[in-house]
């Protein structure tokens, strides 16, 4: 024993040194790649940017300052302005809520048809998964712009685009939830001769519904942001109003819209955290 130990120790030391060297080398490689990407990216940005970087930094506070100065000049007359834009905000929220609901239902259907523990047919699973991948990967903006072109200006393109994207994005999460759920209740129901729909209704759904709702609420929060952005390209709501106000350079009104938006998003952030906490007992 006592003779074997030093040799062993030596071996361990050699191994340790090898490992450390290897780690150092791969970390250095990683850092080098990051630095390369950083400088490459900066070069591209400097080449492509219209204004220079230094002037941009210097100008950074100009626009916010203009907005605030405009607002302070209005004094108390400012608050009616804020209230004036609430209907627009409601349109935006309406788009988000409606398309999240429809997308939620579609996502549940997608998820059921792409879960390995519910569907035996591999082709069906692959096809649904592919469908979800495609719908999820398209930025909503691109779908919305195409539909805006085809259908003219209205809220509908935004609804369609957000619904499609939500169906794909939630579908993927739902699939994971269903595949990770406990198989014993399904077996139990199979043993008493339950049909496929009954199995889903009484064994899968009760297990995953809280998780589904939690994901849905998180998605709603994201979709409110999305529907604002889609407003910018002409889908109505506070986004469209904000775009117009910025073009007309109505500083105080721009700030009013921004306040409403930021307030809504922060409120939704807290609300969704609270609801999700209640639903599944954890914050994430």
């Amino acid at each position, binding site marked *: 024993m006592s003779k074997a130990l030093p040799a062993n120790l030596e071996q361990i030391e050699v191994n340790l040194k090898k490992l450390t060297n290897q780690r150092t080398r791969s970390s250095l490689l990683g850092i080098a790649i*990051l630095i390369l*990407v*950083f400088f*490459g*990216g*900066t070069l*591209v*940005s400097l080449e*492509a*940017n*219209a*204004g220079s*970087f230094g002037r*941009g*930094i210097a*100008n*950074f506070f*100009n*626009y*916010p300052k203009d907005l605030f100065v405009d607002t302070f000049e209005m004094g108390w007359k400012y608050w009616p302005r804020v209230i004036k834009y609430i209907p627009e905000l409601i349109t935006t929220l*309406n*788009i988000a*809520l*409606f398309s999240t*609901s*429809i997308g939620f239902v579609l996502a549940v259907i997608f998820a059921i048809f792409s879960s390995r523990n519910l569907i035996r047919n591999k082709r069906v699973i692959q096809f649904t998964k592919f469908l979800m*991948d*495609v719908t999820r*990967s*398209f*930025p*909503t*903006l*691109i779908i919305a*712009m*195409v539909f805006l*072109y*085809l*259908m*003219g200006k*209205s*809220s*509908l393109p935004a*609804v369609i685009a957000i619904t499609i994207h939500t169906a794909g994005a939630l579908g993927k999460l739902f699939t994971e939830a269903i595949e990770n759920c406990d198989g014993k209740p399904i077996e139990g129901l199979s043993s008493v001769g339950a049909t496929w729909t009954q199995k889903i209704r009484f064994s899968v759904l009760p297990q995953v519904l809280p998780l589904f709702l939690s994901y849905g609420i998180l998605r709603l929060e994201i979709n409110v*942001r999305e529907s*604002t*952005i889609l407003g*910018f*390209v002409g889908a109505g709501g506070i*986004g469209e109003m904000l775009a117009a106000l*910025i073009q007309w350079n109505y500083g105080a009104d721009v700030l009013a819209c*921004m306040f409403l*938006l*930021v307030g809504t*998003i*922060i409120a939704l*952030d807290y609300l969704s955290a609270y609801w999700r906490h209640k639903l599944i007992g954890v*914050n*994430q």
Partner: protein
Amino acid sequence: MSSVLANERDNIRKLYPETFKQAKKSRTKGQIIFFLILIYLIVGFFTLDVVDIPKKWKPQNAAMFVLDTYAHKDHVTMKWESPDDIKIAFEGNYRSVYGRDNLDKSIPDWFYKNSDNIGKVIEFNNLGKAILYKDRVEIVNFPKYERDFTIKLNANGKPYVVGSENLAKSELKGFRITENRVEFRPTLHERIQVYPKKVEIHRYSLGWKYFWFDFSSPLEPYSFFEALALTFSNERVIPEMSNLKLFLTEIKDNEAFMHGRVWWAMLETIVMAVLGTMFATVMALPLSFLAAYNVTPIKALRFTLRRLFDTLRGIDFLIWSLIFLRAFGPGPFTGIFAIGFTDTGTLGKLYSEAIENTEKKQQEGVQSTGASKFLQHRFGIIPQILPIFVSQSLYYLESNTRGAVIIGAMGAGGIGLQFLGALATGNDFENVAYMAILVLAVVIFMDRLSAWLRRILIGSDQLIVR
């Protein structure tokens, strides 16, 4: 056996009425919520004009849009006042005219002289023919049509179909006849329009023509692989530059698909996403330590930082990009900082939560060796949270790619703006489709890349949340 019989159930119900009442209560609550949602959906259905979909949905527009994404068309134009001067142009573009002398572009083989040596034939892909004469247009040989048609101008100079008075409506299907125009469109791929001043024929074929080399390129006669083979040959296609250089510049400067510009825009978008995420990670890393209670004892600092994260996150990247757009002008810097600022908030919050959830034992172990506070964090906390950091940042990299496309469309440049431009022209739908596919491919690629990096860096491609 612990099975429950029906009559026993009633006994249990009597014994524990509270439990059953509660179950019933929660069931009714669920039903009420369900009905409320249903009512909302109905309201939303009407307030958002979903009912108007059939009214707003113009199938003709959509069909044209889809057709143009996978097919291209050649225009043949003849003016009645000068019937010998027939112009054949790709997509009707005045810069892409076949047979124009200076370009030495041969007339396509579907355009030839008729057997009577007077008329000029345009043969469609379905073998139907339009024959142009000085005073009339003959439409012959179309499949599914039993007879041929002739379109002439009447005494007032208005077009009409000869003998159309005697024809039933079903025999004239495919025709749209108005006072100043006769249009014949049997399928989407053939279109013959006769006006008082001119005849215009659109002939569609499948595919993206001139995808690699545009109409006026010296390499246009060659296919992609033929041109690639030419780059290894010593004979120069044009004397000014080598074949390889010509090959690359011709692809880059393609006028129809603008590969150079599109790919540069795509690069800008990717740079926005990557540098934005890097910026956010670098900013959030130290801040998150300062915002975690097990690292920072000062409560006021923690509170301030938490609210800072909330504000950064709450001011959506939409508003950040508007502010930065004013400062930096259109360009990647706008996108980088908009993404960077928003994600500093998001990542800062997630990171600091991760730091607070770390195991305390490791830090204590390091502390027991007499290490300083800094070393305790370096060896006690960082090894625990590094996988979470990497996984979160990479996860956001993927969603930021989509975000960068959107910021671009709002004015920061990149592929989003190019896409908006192509859509606004109203007829370059093949470009729209090309860019949409490109964006899709890049987003999927970034998704895979971030999953792959997560796998090799931390051994799992799932998002790690603690």
